[in-house]
């Protein structure tokens, strides 16, 4: 089944030096080609990453602190552009379109992001938070559509029953886990093609973490998910494919099952067995 990949992608993966076991995916939503990110001239924080992210699946990016996993994720929706000392080179294809050449606002609408710490907008009600993506883009929806969208998004993140009578209240009294689900609802309300999650459970307690993990497993039916995590067991529990990064390089990229049972690189094995990181 993995033979039907297009030639272009095989080329990329073969020329890559970094990925020792290049995972070839049939249906790629996101493709990294020679992606480098630097925070200071002449020094790359990420060195030439090549990989294709599978559509409709959860892809985990693992690695020790400072390995560049968040940096890689934030390159996708061009968050690095907010800081003018960060430079991104290479190609990042979202459905065969290079996001680095697209309009940044459009890219960000198509690639929703969930952050480490829940960041609902404190001045907006729960209802307005879900629709923030629309109001921030100046899109006005008819009332019925707004209500349907809010309900659907909140149902998708299993928050609807808890907040349906409080929609006009501000979200600040919600628990951390509820706030993070609200942020996921805000991201998916825009119907993005891919959901980028930057350690979305690192600020949450185990129960809330569990809720979010279950949620991701249902959300992957509609959205492709890339999740950065330094929690190996989380990656093992929920992801289909896993990337292992170390010192800014993509060391290994494989099916999660394969990587956890039979890692190809020694570094990966050392990390997974807890010898460093």
């Amino acid at each position, binding site marked *: 089944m993995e033979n039907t990949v297009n030639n272009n992608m095989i080329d990329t993966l073969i020329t890559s030096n970094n990925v020792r076991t290049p995972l070839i995916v049939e249906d790629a939503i996101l493709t990294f080609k020679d992606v480098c990110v630097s925070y200071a001239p002449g020094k790359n924080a990420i060195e030439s990453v090549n990989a294709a992210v599978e559509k409709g699946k959860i892809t985990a990016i693992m690695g020790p602190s400072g390995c560049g996993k968040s940096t890689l994720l934030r390159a996708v929706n061009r968050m690095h552009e*907010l800081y003018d000392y960060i430079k991104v080179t290479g190609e990042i294809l979202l459905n065969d379109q290079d996001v680095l050449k697209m309009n940044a606002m459009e890219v*960000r609408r198509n690639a929703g992001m969930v*952050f480490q710490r829940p*960041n609902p907008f404190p*001045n907006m009600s729960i209802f307005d938070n879900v629709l*923030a*993506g629309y109001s*921030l883009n100046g899109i006005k929806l008819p009332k019925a559509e707004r209500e349907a969208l809010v309900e659907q998004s909140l149902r998708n993140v299993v928050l609807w029953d808890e907040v349906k009578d409080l929609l006009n209240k501000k979200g600040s009294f919600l628990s951390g886990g509820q706030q993070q689900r609200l942020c996921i609802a*805000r991201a998916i309300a825009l119907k993005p093609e891919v959901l980028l999650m930057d350690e979305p459970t690192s600020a949450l307690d185990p129960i809330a973490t569990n809720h979010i993990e279950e949620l991701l497993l249902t959300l992957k039916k509609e959205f492709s998910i890339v999740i950065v995590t330094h929690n190996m067991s989380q990656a093992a529990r929920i992801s289909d494919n896993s990337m292992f990064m170390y010192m800014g390089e993509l060391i290994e990229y494989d099916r999660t099952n394969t990587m956890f049972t039979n890692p190809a690189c020694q570094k990966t094995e050392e990390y997974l067995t807890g010898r460093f990181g």
Partner: protein
Amino acid sequence: MKDLLFKKALFTASLLLLLIGAGMVYTLFDGALPAFDAFGFFKFIGSTAWDPHPDREAYGALPFIVGTLFTAFLALLIAIPFALPVALFTGVYYRGTKAAHIIGAIVDLLAGIPSIVYGLWGFYTLRPWIIESGFSTGGFGIFTSAVVLAIMIIPYASSLSAEFLSMVPNDLKEGAYSLGATRLDMIQQVVFPFAGSGIFASFILALGRALGETMAVTMLIGNTNNLPLSLTATGNTMASVIANQFGEADGLKLSALIAIAFLLFILTALINLAGKFIIKRFNQ
């Protein structure tokens, strides 16, 4: 033991400050009493009389209250379109850059210039411009004072606003950007609502300064006892009438001036209180 001593010292210091404040209010009120007795508290506030002739001596504070509020609010109105962009420039758009530091420092420098210097500038530079433009014949009056006041309060409003703007968490800004917002949308819908009450507070502070500013206004407002009802009208503010007439006042006139000082005290306290109240409502 040491802890107890420290606590007592703190308590004494705060109590002392409170007593000084109370003492000031008391002496002001005591000095103002003859005027309030002679004309009645509310009649004094509502009257436009100002006649020091011994046979028909009569004083009222209305022209000066109006002059104070008129110049201060006009100054605030003029200051906002300058203070807010400067705050956005240094606090959001160019935050942390060299340009922001330089501009921030220059604006802060404006706050340190003594008001007599502003008064001289207003007298010798602004006033001739206003005469030349044909806006008013004498060049003195409400508008001239308000322009100089506006320049004086811009640094207060803008540097504090910039502080509040730069306190908006990066989390929220990135959250807005990640949803595809442009910088303008982000500022309008995330930064301003978050920093809104702080920005409001900084403008209240600026207004407070404009209400009490004395020297520059005294030099520019024209020092008449008219009820100022137009931009070109001359008049006096509460502070300027006191500064201008205190030297040769005695008896009932002196008491009337102290009464005006008492009212100015109340007015600034009320505006500060109203500001605090509105900020509280904002934050709910």
